[in-house]
């Protein structure tokens, strides 16, 4: 499944969805939200997903983030089929491979910024001192090291989202999943957050999937997709046979 990218390097597939379907039964009515989604995501991709409200973007995100299981179809993460995994394995994989960023930040209100960032490391069983050191470093990286000891209610929306991004990235996940990360931010802050994603994508080959309603946000992603009628389609195919990471504007 590997392809050659422009520089002739191996661009490895991080995740792939094969004919993923998801339906919800509300009483006697069964609604099929995802109707056969196929998607391959390569290391270094920055991919946007757009689509009308209720089309199943978050549903797909939950499946990608191992929080939910498809009704049918296969999902491979780093070549491993996740369908057969039990809850503990999924939790460990989520901790190791996935970083979440949510529209409403979802920071833990009673913890300080650095403590929030340290949570994924804590669940990995790291010692306090190590977890703290790495959390502080990650906060510096996203430009908010000075606020390490603030609690979420002492931070602005943009600052909170930076903390959330630091938390998503501190465990060095394979992929960052962001569900409307700029949805609660004003245009300027939103732009800053997108620049941060673009920078991390360019400098560190961060792989990211960003759900958004904002065309501006989508424009900054090299790969742009839409969901309609339960099917995901790519706005324009990746350039050439492969794709160049970090080519977003």
């Amino acid at each position, binding site marked *: 499944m590997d392809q050659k990218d422009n520089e002739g390097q191996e661009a490895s597939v991080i995740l792939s969805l094969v004919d993923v379907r998801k339906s919800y039964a509300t009483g006697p009515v069964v609604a099929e939200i995802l109707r056969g989604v196929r998607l391959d995501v390569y290391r270094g991709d920055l991919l946007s997903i757009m689509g009308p409200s209720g089309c199943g973007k978050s549903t797909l995100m*939950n499946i990608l*983030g191992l*929080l*939910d299981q498809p009704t049918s179809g296969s999902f491979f993460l780093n070549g491993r089929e996740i369908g057969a995994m039990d*809850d*503990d394995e999924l*939790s*460990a994989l*989520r*901790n*190791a491979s996935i970083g*979440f960023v*949510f529209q409403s930040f*979802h920071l*833990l209100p*009673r*913890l300080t910024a650095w*403590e929030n960032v*340290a*949570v*994924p*490391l*804590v*669940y*990995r*069983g*790291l*010692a*306090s001192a*190590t*977890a*703290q050191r790495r959390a502080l470093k990650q906060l510096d990286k996203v430009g908010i090291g000075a606020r390490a000891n603030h609690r979420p209610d002492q931070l602005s929306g943009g600052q909170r989202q930076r903390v959330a991004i630091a*938390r998503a990235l501190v*465990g060095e996940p394979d992929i960052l999943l962001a569900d409307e990360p700029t949805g609660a931010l004003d245009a300027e802050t939103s732009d800053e957050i997108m620049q941060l994603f673009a920078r991390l994508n360019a400098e560190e080959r961060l792989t990211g999937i960003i759900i958004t309603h904002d065309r501006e946000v989508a424009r900054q992603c090299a790969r742009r997709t839409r969901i309609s009628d339960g099917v995901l389609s790519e706005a324009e195919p990746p350039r050439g046979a492969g794709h160049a990471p970090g080519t977003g504007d």
Partner: protein
Amino acid sequence: MLALAQANLKEAASSLLAAKQRTLLALVGIAIGIGSVIAMISVGVIARDEALRQFQELGTDILTITFQHSGPAGGLSAVTPDEALGVTRLAAIAAAAPYAVSYAQFALPGREAKDVMLLGATATLPDLNKLKIETGRHISDLDLRRYFCVIGSEVAAALRATGIQRLVGEAIEVAGSVYTIVGVLRRTPKGMRDFDVNHSIIVPLSTAQRVFRQPEIHSITARLSPGTYHVTAELKVGDYFRRISPGIEVRVRSAEHLIEQMHKQMRLFALLLGSVGGISLLVGGIGVMNVMLVSVSERRREIGIRRALGARRMDIQSQFLIESVVLSLAAGVIGVGAGVGVTWAICQFTDWAFRISMLAVGLGVGVASAAGVFFGFYPAYRAARLDPVTALRGS
């Protein structure tokens, strides 16, 4: 320290502090439960020790023999001094001190008359009743029918208050007879004795036979022969007196016997306090469960976030379990404090020697944490089984 354990403890404390009112209610429930158990156990233990100390002060090999009302007509039954002393011929009895009792007014010039107890006793009395001389000497067998006396500390104090410095050698008049003081006793707590020796005047039994209006023997203090089982001795003593004086009602008490009875009572007490403590703990425990259930439903989003960040079900379960144990343990500590405080107050009131029963404290803390685990289990289980997607949506 692992970051997880540290974070869990911190989180538990801060989330409990955040839900002040509910936390407080559950806390009070458990604290009352633990506190009352602690107080009751401690007071029980202290009371028992106090009684044991009194028994042991006299010696656990001491028997008290008393003669009770006998027959339907009632009335005190009694034996003669010789009959009483005959009990020592039993192999089970090593020594005996029969005594006759007479109550009298003790008048000192210019003072109010005092009630005193006249004891007509043999030379064995001080030894069997652990009476110690302060000055002078005890009554001896050589004082046969003489008007000598040994006085208790309160009687001595009353005499000294009139200005007499050297009591030994002084003559005092009691109930129409004049006695020469040959000795003064040390102050002795009443303990298990049938008489308060501090307010007593001891005269030779042979003298008492002449002057007491009722010189018969109603009580005997006796000592078991070494290695004798107290129940055997009690039976033998009863048989002996019934043989020489048919129809007499003999009551024999031994320290061992009383201690056994006390242990039985303590078991009953323990059962009672176990149920009282159990009920309050149940009430408190349900309070804890309620706090935890509300906490779980209020923090669904937090649970979802933690799951998204890689927490396993076990991690969520232990987080909430730790929280309920922290809550119960805090209540337990408060309860232990309150229980110890109440015990202290009771000891002040009753003049018992206050001490903290480590058994009770350990039990309190142990029971509190067990309650935390027990009543926290179901809420924690619910938290752990929450579907992450639903939990993340919150509300």
